[in-house]
């Protein structure tokens, strides 16, 4: 009985290398499984990206009218503090004078404010070193050697344009995207 059964599966696949059909099927199955796994993993991972309500809170409007020259206030934007400083002409001049100095993170003051509204300096109030909130908004607070802000954590000094001048911070205080809506209102983000 044994010899009468010529098992068909032992014969090589005609017209190609042996086992080609099986390899093809294995490849297709593996590819299908990969697509399946990807389509399952993607929604899980993407669910951790900001949700619609978080994205909706990504803009803040600030009324500038109550901020007098020489005064600075802090507003919240995307969970972060943003310094809104109404600069005096002396502060602007101080910032401009240092434009050509050797700065750790070179930037012209004019590039960090809006044209025609140079008295308004809007920067994110997070030290670019390790993330503390620098002090100096109030005139009674330490403002560091350059008249801007001072970070008490590791001693970074920022000038009246929010640029890093001395200390371990590698970059200037970030300028967030913002636009003027009329003369006394801005929308950040």
């Amino acid at each position, binding site marked *: *009985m*044994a*010899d009468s*059964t010529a*098992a068909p599966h032992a014969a090589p696949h005609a017209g190609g290398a042996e086992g080609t059909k099986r390899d093809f099927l294995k490849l297709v199955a593996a590819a299908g499984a990969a697509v399946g796994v990807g389509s399952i993993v993607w*929604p*899980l991972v*993407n*669910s*951790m*990206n900001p*949700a*619609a*309500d*978080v994205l909706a809170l990504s803009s803040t409007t600030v009324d500038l009218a109550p901020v007098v020259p020489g005064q600075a206030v802090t507003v919240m934007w995307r969970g972060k503090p943003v310094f809104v400083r109404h600069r005096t002409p002396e502060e602007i001049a101080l910032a401009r004078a240092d434009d050509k100095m050797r700065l750790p993170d070179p930037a012209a003051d004019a590039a960090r404010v809006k044209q025609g509204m140079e008295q308004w300096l809007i920067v994110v109030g997070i030290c670019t070193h390790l993330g503390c909130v620098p002090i100096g908004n109030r005139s009674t607070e330490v403002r560091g050697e350059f008249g801007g802000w001072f970070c008490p954590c590791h001693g970074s000094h920022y000038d009246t344009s929010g640029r890093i001048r001395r200390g371990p911070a590698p970059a200037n205080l970030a300028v967030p995207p913002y636009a003027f809506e009329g003369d006394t209102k801005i929308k950040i983000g």
Partner: protein
Amino acid sequence: MAGLHKSEFENPVIRWIDSRLPIFTMIQKEYGVFPTPRNFNYFWNFGALALINLVIMIATGIFLAMNYTPHATMAFDSVERIMRDVNSGWLLRYVHSNGASMFFIVVYIHMARSLYYGSYKTPRELLWILGVIILLLMMATAFMGYVLPWGQMSYWGATVITNLFSAFPLVGDSIVTWLWGGFSVDNATLNRFFSLHYLMPFVLVGVVFLHIAALHITGSNNPLGIEVKGPADTLPFHPYYTIKDSVGICVYFIVFATLVFFAPNYLGHADNYIPANPLVTPAHIVPEWYFLPFYAILRSVPDKLGGVLLMFGSIFVLFVLPWLDTSPVRSARFRPIYRVLFWVLVVALVVLGIAGAKPAEGIWVVLSRIATAYYFLHFLVILPILGKFERPLPLPESISRAVLSIMGGGGPLPGGAAAKPAMEKA
């Protein structure tokens, strides 16, 4: 070197890992070459499906927990936020809620297979008992999970079920206060249910591991209910049952996807989209469908404590089933009377399920009492007696004999398989 496992793998990286922690050897042994009866039907897929379902529930649950707030004032809204604002949040929620239903569908069919083919009989008694423990853990997890969205059904279902424990004399009320953490189902209850709901699935994973380990000691049962006698009766798990399980998984996903994408709220209750209100009880408090038979048993007894005891008793009889059934024959295929009674039990359970959803009035009370009576009669009276009197059909000599005889005496098979049964001693 002393103590290192002698790995048989060639790849040097795999070998290095395997000799220090023989996972690859273990997988090769338990799921690669593991001798599995060659006559499995698709009912043997459901254990693997249950495991996959558990993984899906844990994955979706963990990501849901990233956005859920377990506080009575915020829970309902946090679930709605998941549905509306979180990326793919609706998908996570619907997969998790319908996944719970799928889990019970799969496990109930898995258990039905065991009842029909006698998989609970010796030497698989402990395997069966571990399975009943898994069922209990699933029920506890599902119950607590349903409370979390803090809808009307969540709140009132929790109230009704926790109040059951007040049926116990003397200590009943203290137990209920202790469960609640207060004087009614409230924030304290919600918080602890969330903690335990997160915990239970991992306890479940541990028990599932034991369940599978026990299975691998005894080996699987098969539709004929006769033990494996030699290699001719078995096939290596891979590729035969890995592929067969893959087919089953595809069908399972089709059913799952149909629910999730086309009828995500079909198995749920509309009242749970109403925020919980301690001052207003819904007209009909109904648990999720998978608890309906037990709910019907609970309500079929007019006495409060009696109902509670009978409801817990309905699970307890499952624990001792291996000792209740006295028949030496495993598979219902060869037990003509038991076969019929099995289906009567199924009908009784379906009746209980339907009755559980109805108000406890009129014909439904009568029907649930009859069905409850039959349920306990079946396990406690019929099974012990039947084994003594039933005349079973003649059992085949071996699995391979039975398989080959179906195929007409070894026709298209390679010669080896046909020759072997003649050579091996029965």
